[in-house]
Protein backbone atom coordinates (compact mmCIF):
# COMPACT_ATOMS: atom_id res chain seq x y z
CA UNK A 1 0.00 0.00 0.00
CA UNK A 2 2.97 2.36 0.61
CA UNK A 3 3.78 2.44 -3.10
CA UNK A 4 0.20 3.40 -3.85
CA UNK A 5 0.11 6.14 -1.22
CA UNK A 6 3.57 7.33 -2.25
CA UNK A 7 2.18 8.00 -5.72
CA UNK A 8 -1.01 9.60 -4.42
CA UNK A 9 -0.29 12.78 -6.42
CA UNK A 10 -0.39 10.97 -9.75
CA UNK A 11 -3.43 9.00 -8.60
CA UNK A 12 -5.30 12.20 -7.79
CA UNK A 13 -4.06 13.74 -11.04
CA UNK A 14 -5.36 10.77 -13.01
CA UNK A 15 -8.75 10.82 -11.34
CA UNK A 16 -9.05 14.57 -11.91
CA UNK A 17 -8.94 13.88 -15.67
CA UNK A 18 -11.44 11.06 -15.21
CA UNK A 19 -13.83 13.49 -13.50
CA UNK A 20 -13.30 16.15 -16.18
CA UNK A 21 -14.00 13.66 -18.94
CA UNK A 22 -17.11 12.35 -17.15
CA UNK A 23 -18.69 15.69 -16.30
CA UNK A 24 -18.27 17.39 -19.67
CA UNK A 25 -19.19 14.25 -21.65
CA UNK A 26 -22.26 13.81 -19.46
CA UNK A 27 -23.50 17.31 -20.29
CA UNK A 28 -22.92 16.92 -24.04
CA UNK A 29 -24.33 13.41 -24.22
CA UNK A 30 -27.46 14.49 -22.32
CA UNK A 31 -28.11 17.37 -24.70
CA UNK A 32 -27.45 15.22 -27.76
CA UNK A 33 -29.56 12.42 -26.28
CA UNK A 34 -32.56 14.73 -25.81
CA UNK A 35 -32.19 15.96 -29.40
CA UNK A 36 -31.98 12.39 -30.72
CA UNK A 37 -35.05 11.34 -28.73
CA UNK A 38 -37.02 14.33 -30.01
CA UNK A 39 -36.07 13.40 -33.54
CA UNK A 40 -37.08 9.79 -32.99
CA UNK A 41 -40.61 10.66 -31.88
CA UNK A 42 -41.06 13.50 -34.36
CA UNK A 43 -43.80 13.41 -37.02
CA UNK A 44 -41.21 13.93 -39.80
CA UNK A 45 -40.14 10.52 -41.19
CA UNK A 46 -36.77 11.85 -42.39
CA UNK A 47 -35.82 12.96 -38.86
CA UNK A 48 -36.85 9.61 -37.45
CA UNK A 49 -34.74 7.71 -39.96
CA UNK A 50 -31.64 9.85 -39.32
CA UNK A 51 -31.87 9.56 -35.54
CA UNK A 52 -32.69 5.86 -35.52
CA UNK A 53 -29.88 5.14 -37.93
CA UNK A 54 -27.37 7.10 -35.85
CA UNK A 55 -28.39 5.46 -32.58
CA UNK A 56 -28.35 1.95 -34.03
CA UNK A 57 -24.95 2.36 -35.68
CA UNK A 58 -23.08 4.08 -32.84
CA UNK A 59 -24.72 2.07 -30.05
CA UNK A 60 -23.58 -1.17 -31.64
CA UNK A 61 -20.01 -0.04 -32.31
CA UNK A 62 -17.50 -0.85 -29.55
CA UNK A 63 -16.39 2.28 -27.71
CA UNK A 64 -12.75 1.44 -28.39
CA UNK A 65 -13.43 1.71 -32.11
CA UNK A 66 -15.37 4.97 -31.68
CA UNK A 67 -12.46 6.55 -29.78
CA UNK A 68 -9.84 5.10 -32.15
CA UNK A 69 -11.79 6.71 -34.98
CA UNK A 70 -11.66 10.04 -33.11
CA UNK A 71 -7.92 9.74 -32.46
CA UNK A 72 -6.52 8.15 -35.60
CA UNK A 73 -9.34 9.04 -38.01
CA UNK A 74 -10.77 12.48 -37.25
CA UNK A 75 -7.65 13.91 -35.63
CA UNK A 76 -4.74 12.24 -37.39
CA UNK A 77 -6.01 11.55 -40.90
CA UNK A 78 -8.54 14.38 -41.28
CA UNK A 79 -6.67 16.93 -39.19
CA UNK A 80 -9.45 17.86 -36.77
CA UNK A 81 -7.86 19.68 -33.83
CA UNK A 82 -9.49 21.46 -30.90
CA UNK A 83 -6.48 22.92 -29.16
CA UNK A 84 -2.80 23.72 -29.63
CA UNK A 85 -1.86 21.86 -26.47
CA UNK A 86 -1.75 18.13 -27.06
CA UNK A 87 -3.17 17.23 -23.65
CA UNK A 88 -6.31 19.34 -24.16
CA UNK A 89 -6.61 18.38 -27.80
CA UNK A 90 -6.83 14.66 -27.00
CA UNK A 91 -9.13 15.50 -24.08
CA UNK A 92 -11.67 17.20 -26.34
CA UNK A 93 -11.39 14.42 -28.91
CA UNK A 94 -12.16 11.92 -26.16
CA UNK A 95 -15.10 14.06 -25.00
CA UNK A 96 -16.39 14.06 -28.58
CA UNK A 97 -16.19 10.27 -28.84
CA UNK A 98 -17.59 9.58 -25.38
CA UNK A 99 -20.48 12.03 -25.90
CA UNK A 100 -21.36 10.65 -29.32
CA UNK A 101 -21.39 7.13 -27.88
CA UNK A 102 -23.16 7.82 -24.57
CA UNK A 103 -25.85 9.96 -26.24
CA UNK A 104 -27.24 6.77 -27.82
CA UNK A 105 -27.79 5.22 -24.42
CA UNK A 106 -29.31 8.43 -23.05
CA UNK A 107 -31.61 8.48 -26.06
CA UNK A 108 -32.68 4.85 -25.56
CA UNK A 109 -33.43 5.49 -21.89
CA UNK A 110 -35.44 8.62 -22.69
CA UNK A 111 -37.38 6.89 -25.44
CA UNK A 112 -38.54 4.25 -22.99
CA UNK A 113 -39.56 7.14 -20.72
CA UNK A 114 -41.54 8.74 -23.53
CA UNK A 115 -43.45 5.47 -23.88
CA UNK A 116 -44.60 5.74 -20.25
CA UNK A 117 -46.49 8.98 -20.94
CA UNK A 118 -50.14 8.05 -21.52
CA UNK A 119 -51.14 8.68 -25.11
CA UNK A 120 -54.32 10.42 -23.95
CA UNK A 121 -52.22 13.28 -22.59
CA UNK A 122 -50.52 13.80 -25.93
CA UNK A 123 -53.87 13.81 -27.71
CA UNK A 124 -55.32 16.21 -25.15
CA UNK A 125 -52.40 18.57 -25.63
CA UNK A 126 -52.79 18.44 -29.39
CA UNK A 127 -56.51 19.17 -29.17
CA UNK A 128 -55.67 22.21 -27.03
CA UNK A 129 -53.68 23.42 -30.04
CA UNK A 130 -50.13 22.81 -28.78
CA UNK A 131 -47.57 22.33 -31.54
CA UNK A 132 -45.36 19.22 -31.60
CA UNK A 133 -42.45 21.15 -30.04
CA UNK A 134 -44.62 22.58 -27.27
CA UNK A 135 -46.12 19.16 -26.67
CA UNK A 136 -42.66 17.67 -26.29
CA UNK A 137 -41.32 20.51 -24.15
CA UNK A 138 -44.26 20.94 -21.79
CA UNK A 139 -45.99 17.56 -21.59
CA UNK A 140 -43.89 14.63 -22.78
CA UNK A 141 -40.21 15.28 -21.98
CA UNK A 142 -40.68 16.47 -18.36
CA UNK A 143 -42.60 13.30 -17.53
CA UNK A 144 -40.24 11.11 -19.56
CA UNK A 145 -37.24 12.58 -17.74
CA UNK A 146 -38.78 12.02 -14.32
CA UNK A 147 -39.47 8.38 -15.03
CA UNK A 148 -36.00 7.65 -16.48
CA UNK A 149 -33.79 9.09 -13.76
CA UNK A 150 -32.83 5.60 -12.58
CA UNK A 151 -31.69 4.34 -16.01
CA UNK A 152 -29.90 7.64 -16.67
CA UNK A 153 -27.94 7.07 -13.45
CA UNK A 154 -26.78 3.73 -14.82
CA UNK A 155 -25.73 5.42 -18.04
CA UNK A 156 -23.70 7.98 -16.07
CA UNK A 157 -21.96 5.24 -14.08
CA UNK A 158 -21.17 3.40 -17.31
CA UNK A 159 -19.78 6.64 -18.76
CA UNK A 160 -17.50 7.12 -15.74
CA UNK A 161 -16.00 3.68 -16.23
CA UNK A 162 -15.84 4.09 -20.01
CA UNK A 163 -13.47 7.04 -19.65
CA UNK A 164 -10.72 4.46 -19.02
CA UNK A 165 -10.75 3.64 -22.73
CA UNK A 166 -9.67 7.20 -23.56
CA UNK A 167 -6.08 6.52 -22.49
CA UNK A 168 -5.48 3.64 -24.87
CA UNK A 169 -7.51 4.21 -28.03
CA UNK A 170 -4.99 6.29 -29.98
CA UNK A 171 -5.57 9.29 -27.72
CA UNK A 172 -3.56 8.84 -24.54
CA UNK A 173 -5.67 11.03 -22.28
CA UNK A 174 -4.08 11.04 -18.85
CA UNK A 175 -6.89 9.44 -16.89
CA UNK A 176 -6.78 7.18 -13.85
CA UNK A 177 -6.23 3.81 -15.53
CA UNK A 178 -3.28 5.21 -17.49
CA UNK A 179 -1.68 6.35 -14.24
CA UNK A 180 -2.17 2.83 -12.94
CA UNK A 181 -0.44 1.31 -15.98
CA UNK A 182 2.40 3.80 -15.64
CA UNK A 183 2.85 2.80 -12.02
CA UNK A 184 3.07 -0.85 -13.07
CA UNK A 185 5.53 -0.09 -15.84
CA UNK A 186 7.93 2.25 -14.12
CA UNK A 187 8.33 1.77 -10.47
CA UNK A 188 7.77 -1.75 -9.39
CA UNK A 189 4.59 -1.41 -7.38
CA UNK A 190 2.74 -4.39 -5.94
CA UNK A 191 0.05 -5.26 -8.44
CA UNK A 192 -2.92 -6.32 -6.32
CA UNK A 193 -2.96 -3.40 -3.82
CA UNK A 194 -2.61 -0.93 -6.69
CA UNK A 195 -5.50 -2.51 -8.54
CA UNK A 196 -7.60 -2.44 -5.39
CA UNK A 197 -6.67 1.18 -4.73
CA UNK A 198 -7.78 2.30 -8.18
CA UNK A 199 -10.95 0.20 -7.99
CA UNK A 200 -11.80 1.94 -4.72
CA UNK A 201 -11.12 5.27 -6.41
CA UNK A 202 -13.76 4.46 -9.03
CA UNK A 203 -16.19 3.30 -6.34
CA UNK A 204 -15.76 6.65 -4.58
CA UNK A 205 -16.89 8.30 -7.81
CA UNK A 206 -19.69 5.96 -8.83
CA UNK A 207 -21.34 4.80 -5.58
CA UNK A 208 -22.59 8.29 -4.60
CA UNK A 209 -23.88 8.71 -8.18
CA UNK A 210 -25.93 5.54 -7.83
CA UNK A 211 -27.39 6.60 -4.49
CA UNK A 212 -28.07 10.15 -5.67
CA UNK A 213 -29.93 9.00 -8.75
CA UNK A 214 -31.84 6.39 -6.77
CA UNK A 215 -32.93 9.04 -4.28
CA UNK A 216 -33.86 11.49 -7.04
CA UNK A 217 -35.89 8.92 -8.95
CA UNK A 218 -37.93 8.18 -5.80
CA UNK A 219 -38.30 11.89 -5.07
CA UNK A 220 -39.38 12.86 -8.56
CA UNK A 221 -41.33 9.78 -9.64
CA UNK A 222 -44.47 10.60 -11.59
CA UNK A 223 -47.46 9.65 -9.45
CA UNK A 224 -50.16 8.15 -11.63
Amino acid at each position, binding site marked *: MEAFLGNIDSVIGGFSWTVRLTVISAVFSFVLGVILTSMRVSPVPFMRVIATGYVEVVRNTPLTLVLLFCG*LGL*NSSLGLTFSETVAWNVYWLAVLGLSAYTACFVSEALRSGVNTVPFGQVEAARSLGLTFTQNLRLIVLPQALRSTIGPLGSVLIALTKNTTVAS*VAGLGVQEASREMKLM*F*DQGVVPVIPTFVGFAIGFLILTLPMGYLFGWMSRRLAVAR
Partner: protein
Amino acid sequence: MRVRRISTALAGVAALALAVTACGPTAGEGGGGGGEGGGDTITIGTKYDQPGLGLLEGQEPVGFDVDVAEYVAAELGYEEDQIEWTEAASANRETYLQQGTVDMIFATYSITDERKEVVSFGGPYYVAQQDILVAADDDSINTPEDLAGKTLCSASGSRSAFTITETMEIDAQLREAGNYSECMQLLTNGTVDAVTTDNVILAGFSSQQEGEFRLLNEPFQEERYGVGLPKDSDMCEDVNAAITKMWEDGTAAELLEEHFGPTGLDYATEQPELDGCA
Protein backbone atom coordinates in the same frame (compact mmCIF):
# COMPACT_ATOMS: atom_id res chain seq x y z
CA MET B 1 -36.34 -16.38 -0.17
CA ARG B 2 -33.30 -16.91 2.02
CA VAL B 3 -32.23 -20.00 0.10
CA ARG B 4 -32.48 -18.13 -3.14
CA ARG B 5 -30.46 -15.23 -1.83
CA ILE B 6 -27.69 -17.51 -0.60
CA SER B 7 -27.50 -19.37 -3.88
CA THR B 8 -27.37 -16.09 -5.76
CA ALA B 9 -24.49 -14.95 -3.60
CA LEU B 10 -22.74 -18.27 -4.14
CA ALA B 11 -23.17 -18.00 -7.87
CA GLY B 12 -21.68 -14.53 -7.74
CA VAL B 13 -18.68 -15.73 -5.76
CA ALA B 14 -18.18 -18.64 -8.15
CA ALA B 15 -18.31 -16.35 -11.17
CA LEU B 16 -15.79 -14.02 -9.55
CA ALA B 17 -13.46 -16.88 -8.75
CA LEU B 18 -13.68 -18.08 -12.33
CA ALA B 19 -12.95 -14.60 -13.61
CA VAL B 20 -9.91 -14.26 -11.38
CA THR B 21 -8.44 -17.63 -12.23
CA ALA B 22 -9.04 -17.08 -15.92
CA CYS B 23 -6.63 -14.16 -15.89
CA GLY B 24 -3.18 -14.68 -17.31
CA PRO B 25 -1.75 -17.66 -19.12
CA THR B 26 -1.11 -20.82 -17.18
CA ALA B 27 2.44 -21.37 -16.08
CA GLY B 28 4.52 -23.68 -18.21
CA GLU B 29 6.48 -26.55 -16.80
CA GLY B 30 8.72 -24.93 -14.20
CA GLY B 31 12.24 -24.34 -15.42
CA GLY B 32 14.71 -27.13 -15.09
CA GLY B 33 18.22 -26.17 -14.06
CA GLY B 34 20.61 -25.06 -16.77
CA GLY B 35 22.22 -27.59 -19.03
CA GLU B 36 20.06 -30.57 -18.23
CA GLY B 37 17.13 -29.91 -20.55
CA GLY B 38 16.36 -33.44 -21.66
CA GLY B 39 12.57 -33.74 -22.04
CA ASP B 40 11.73 -30.59 -20.06
CA THR B 41 10.38 -27.48 -21.69
CA ILE B 42 11.40 -23.92 -20.97
CA THR B 43 8.93 -21.03 -21.10
CA ILE B 44 10.33 -17.82 -22.56
CA GLY B 45 8.54 -14.48 -22.60
CA THR B 46 9.08 -12.07 -25.47
CA LYS B 47 7.29 -9.23 -27.24
CA TYR B 48 4.81 -10.17 -29.96
CA ASP B 49 4.41 -6.68 -31.39
CA GLN B 50 7.89 -5.36 -32.13
CA PRO B 51 9.02 -5.90 -35.71
CA GLY B 52 12.69 -6.85 -35.94
CA LEU B 53 12.87 -7.89 -32.28
CA GLY B 54 9.88 -10.02 -31.41
CA LEU B 55 6.89 -10.12 -33.74
CA LEU B 56 4.31 -12.87 -33.88
CA GLU B 57 4.16 -14.38 -37.36
CA GLY B 58 1.70 -17.23 -37.53
CA GLN B 59 2.22 -19.34 -34.43
CA GLU B 60 5.79 -18.36 -33.49
CA PRO B 61 7.44 -15.02 -32.75
CA VAL B 62 10.40 -13.97 -34.94
CA GLY B 63 13.09 -11.32 -34.50
CA PHE B 64 16.43 -10.51 -32.90
CA ASP B 65 15.26 -11.09 -29.30
CA VAL B 66 13.72 -14.40 -30.32
CA ASP B 67 16.92 -15.59 -32.05
CA VAL B 68 19.06 -14.61 -29.05
CA ALA B 69 16.62 -16.44 -26.78
CA GLU B 70 16.85 -19.56 -28.93
CA TYR B 71 20.67 -19.42 -28.89
CA VAL B 72 20.80 -19.04 -25.11
CA ALA B 73 18.20 -21.78 -24.61
CA ALA B 74 20.24 -24.10 -26.85
CA GLU B 75 23.32 -23.42 -24.69
CA LEU B 76 21.23 -24.30 -21.63
CA GLY B 77 20.32 -27.58 -23.28
CA TYR B 78 16.86 -26.91 -24.73
CA GLU B 79 16.08 -27.70 -28.37
CA GLU B 80 13.87 -25.34 -30.34
CA ASP B 81 10.84 -27.61 -29.92
CA GLN B 82 11.27 -27.51 -26.13
CA ILE B 83 10.73 -23.75 -26.01
CA GLU B 84 7.25 -22.49 -25.17
CA TRP B 85 6.76 -18.87 -26.17
CA THR B 86 4.62 -16.52 -24.10
CA GLU B 87 3.82 -12.92 -24.85
CA ALA B 88 5.35 -10.68 -22.19
CA ALA B 89 3.98 -7.16 -22.52
CA SER B 90 5.97 -4.45 -20.74
CA ALA B 91 3.56 -4.20 -17.84
CA ASN B 92 3.57 -7.94 -17.18
CA ARG B 93 7.28 -8.67 -17.12
CA GLU B 94 8.07 -8.47 -13.40
CA THR B 95 4.86 -10.25 -12.45
CA TYR B 96 5.46 -13.12 -14.87
CA LEU B 97 8.94 -13.71 -13.44
CA GLN B 98 7.76 -13.44 -9.82
CA GLN B 99 4.89 -15.86 -10.35
CA GLY B 100 6.90 -18.31 -12.44
CA THR B 101 4.68 -17.86 -15.49
CA VAL B 102 7.88 -17.72 -17.54
CA ASP B 103 11.43 -18.94 -16.87
CA MET B 104 13.24 -16.25 -18.85
CA ILE B 105 12.33 -13.00 -20.57
CA PHE B 106 13.91 -11.61 -23.74
CA ALA B 107 11.72 -8.61 -24.48
CA THR B 108 13.79 -5.42 -24.91
CA TYR B 109 13.98 -5.57 -21.14
CA SER B 110 16.18 -2.73 -19.88
CA ILE B 111 18.21 -3.39 -16.75
CA THR B 112 17.34 -0.80 -14.10
CA ASP B 113 18.06 -0.59 -10.39
CA GLU B 114 14.36 -0.52 -9.49
CA ARG B 115 13.72 -3.71 -11.43
CA LYS B 116 16.78 -5.38 -9.93
CA GLU B 117 15.05 -5.22 -6.56
CA VAL B 118 12.38 -7.70 -7.69
CA VAL B 119 13.94 -9.69 -10.54
CA SER B 120 17.43 -10.80 -11.58
CA PHE B 121 19.09 -10.03 -14.89
CA GLY B 122 21.49 -11.96 -17.04
CA GLY B 123 23.46 -10.05 -19.64
CA PRO B 124 23.12 -7.42 -21.00
CA TYR B 125 23.21 -9.12 -24.41
CA TYR B 126 22.84 -5.86 -26.31
CA VAL B 127 22.98 -2.17 -25.47
CA ALA B 128 20.49 -0.16 -27.47
CA GLN B 129 20.48 3.61 -27.56
CA GLN B 130 17.47 5.81 -27.37
CA ASP B 131 17.00 7.62 -30.65
CA ILE B 132 14.45 9.64 -32.59
CA LEU B 133 12.56 8.79 -35.77
CA VAL B 134 11.16 11.56 -37.98
CA ALA B 135 9.43 11.67 -41.34
CA ALA B 136 11.88 11.25 -44.24
CA ASP B 137 11.10 14.70 -45.67
CA ASP B 138 11.40 16.55 -42.34
CA ASP B 139 14.79 18.25 -42.11
CA SER B 140 13.96 20.54 -39.17
CA ILE B 141 14.88 17.90 -36.57
CA ASN B 142 18.47 16.69 -36.42
CA THR B 143 19.26 16.54 -32.70
CA PRO B 144 17.12 15.87 -29.64
CA GLU B 145 17.29 19.62 -28.81
CA ASP B 146 15.41 20.37 -32.05
CA LEU B 147 12.33 18.79 -30.48
CA ALA B 148 11.58 21.92 -28.43
CA GLY B 149 8.05 23.01 -29.28
CA LYS B 150 7.43 19.89 -31.36
CA THR B 151 5.05 17.03 -30.65
CA LEU B 152 6.54 13.72 -29.68
CA CYS B 153 4.90 10.31 -29.62
CA SER B 154 5.71 7.48 -27.29
CA ALA B 155 3.87 4.33 -26.44
CA SER B 156 1.84 4.12 -23.30
CA GLY B 157 3.96 2.90 -20.40
CA SER B 158 7.32 3.65 -22.01
CA ARG B 159 9.87 5.79 -20.18
CA SER B 160 11.49 7.01 -23.39
CA ALA B 161 9.54 10.22 -23.78
CA PHE B 162 10.15 11.23 -20.16
CA THR B 163 13.90 11.02 -20.81
CA ILE B 164 13.49 13.88 -23.26
CA THR B 165 10.97 16.00 -21.40
CA GLU B 166 12.12 15.45 -17.81
CA THR B 167 15.75 14.27 -17.78
CA MET B 168 16.93 16.41 -20.68
CA GLU B 169 14.34 19.12 -19.97
CA ILE B 170 13.51 19.67 -23.62
CA ASP B 171 10.20 21.42 -23.97
CA ALA B 172 8.34 19.00 -26.26
CA GLN B 173 4.67 18.09 -26.09
CA LEU B 174 3.80 14.44 -25.57
CA ARG B 175 1.15 12.49 -27.37
CA GLU B 176 0.70 9.00 -26.00
CA ALA B 177 -0.43 6.20 -28.21
CA GLY B 178 -1.46 2.70 -27.26
CA ASN B 179 1.60 1.20 -28.95
CA TYR B 180 4.32 2.06 -31.44
CA SER B 181 2.27 1.01 -34.45
CA GLU B 182 -0.16 3.80 -33.58
CA CYS B 183 2.78 6.19 -33.19
CA MET B 184 3.93 5.32 -36.72
CA GLN B 185 0.42 6.02 -37.98
CA LEU B 186 0.41 9.43 -36.24
CA LEU B 187 3.88 10.20 -37.63
CA THR B 188 2.83 9.24 -41.17
CA ASN B 189 -0.12 11.64 -40.96
CA GLY B 190 1.98 14.43 -39.49
CA THR B 191 -0.03 14.57 -36.26
CA VAL B 192 3.22 14.16 -34.36
CA ASP B 193 6.66 15.34 -35.47
CA ALA B 194 8.76 12.55 -34.02
CA VAL B 195 8.67 9.17 -32.30
CA THR B 196 11.20 8.26 -29.67
CA THR B 197 12.28 4.97 -28.14
CA ASP B 198 15.19 2.52 -28.44
CA ASN B 199 16.87 2.69 -31.86
CA VAL B 200 16.48 -1.03 -32.60
CA ILE B 201 12.73 -0.80 -32.06
CA LEU B 202 12.49 2.28 -34.29
CA ALA B 203 14.60 0.58 -36.95
CA GLY B 204 12.34 -2.46 -36.88
CA PHE B 205 9.24 -0.36 -37.40
CA SER B 206 10.71 1.89 -40.08
CA SER B 207 11.87 -1.14 -42.07
CA GLN B 208 8.21 -2.07 -42.50
CA GLN B 209 7.65 1.09 -44.56
CA GLU B 210 10.98 1.75 -46.26
CA GLY B 211 11.77 5.31 -47.29
CA GLU B 212 9.00 6.85 -45.18
CA PHE B 213 11.05 7.63 -42.08
CA ARG B 214 14.53 8.78 -41.09
CA LEU B 215 16.42 7.67 -38.00
CA LEU B 216 18.55 10.49 -36.57
CA ASN B 217 21.34 8.11 -35.42
CA GLU B 218 21.96 10.60 -32.60
CA PRO B 219 21.94 8.22 -29.63
CA PHE B 220 21.56 9.87 -26.23
CA GLN B 221 20.54 7.31 -23.65
CA GLU B 222 21.70 3.74 -23.11
CA GLU B 223 19.14 0.98 -22.73
CA ARG B 224 20.87 -2.20 -21.60
CA TYR B 225 18.83 -5.20 -22.68
CA GLY B 226 19.10 -7.94 -20.12
CA VAL B 227 17.67 -11.41 -19.78
CA GLY B 228 14.92 -11.28 -17.18
CA LEU B 229 15.21 -14.09 -14.64
CA PRO B 230 13.37 -14.81 -11.41
CA LYS B 231 14.99 -13.18 -8.37
CA ASP B 232 18.20 -15.00 -7.33
CA SER B 233 17.86 -17.51 -10.15
CA ASP B 234 20.59 -20.15 -10.50
CA MET B 235 20.51 -19.82 -14.30
CA CYS B 236 22.23 -16.42 -14.37
CA GLU B 237 25.83 -17.66 -14.76
CA ASP B 238 24.90 -20.09 -17.54
CA VAL B 239 22.96 -17.38 -19.37
CA ASN B 240 25.94 -15.02 -19.18
CA ALA B 241 28.28 -17.73 -20.47
CA ALA B 242 25.91 -18.33 -23.40
CA ILE B 243 25.78 -14.61 -24.21
CA THR B 244 29.58 -14.32 -24.16
CA LYS B 245 29.85 -17.33 -26.45
CA MET B 246 27.25 -15.84 -28.81
CA TRP B 247 29.36 -12.68 -29.26
CA GLU B 248 32.64 -14.58 -29.52
CA ASP B 249 31.56 -17.04 -32.22
CA GLY B 250 30.15 -14.24 -34.37
CA THR B 251 26.51 -15.27 -34.06
CA ALA B 252 25.55 -11.94 -32.48
CA ALA B 253 27.00 -9.93 -35.37
CA GLU B 254 25.23 -12.19 -37.88
CA LEU B 255 21.88 -11.78 -36.15
CA LEU B 256 22.26 -8.00 -35.92
CA GLU B 257 23.14 -7.78 -39.62
CA GLU B 258 20.25 -10.06 -40.54
CA HIS B 259 17.65 -8.04 -38.64
CA PHE B 260 18.99 -4.48 -38.77
CA GLY B 261 21.47 -4.37 -41.65
CA PRO B 262 19.01 -3.02 -44.24
CA THR B 263 17.51 -0.39 -41.90
CA GLY B 264 20.38 2.10 -41.79
CA LEU B 265 20.88 1.61 -38.06
CA ASP B 266 24.42 1.96 -36.71
CA TYR B 267 24.22 -1.10 -34.52
CA ALA B 268 26.85 -1.97 -31.93
CA THR B 269 29.47 -4.53 -32.91
CA GLU B 270 31.14 -5.12 -29.53
CA GLN B 271 29.84 -7.26 -26.70
CA PRO B 272 28.50 -5.08 -23.89
CA GLU B 273 30.13 -5.56 -20.50
CA LEU B 274 28.28 -8.10 -18.40
CA ASP B 275 26.65 -6.96 -15.19
CA GLY B 276 27.68 -10.06 -13.31
CA CYS B 277 25.33 -12.12 -11.20
CA ALA B 278 24.74 -10.58 -7.80
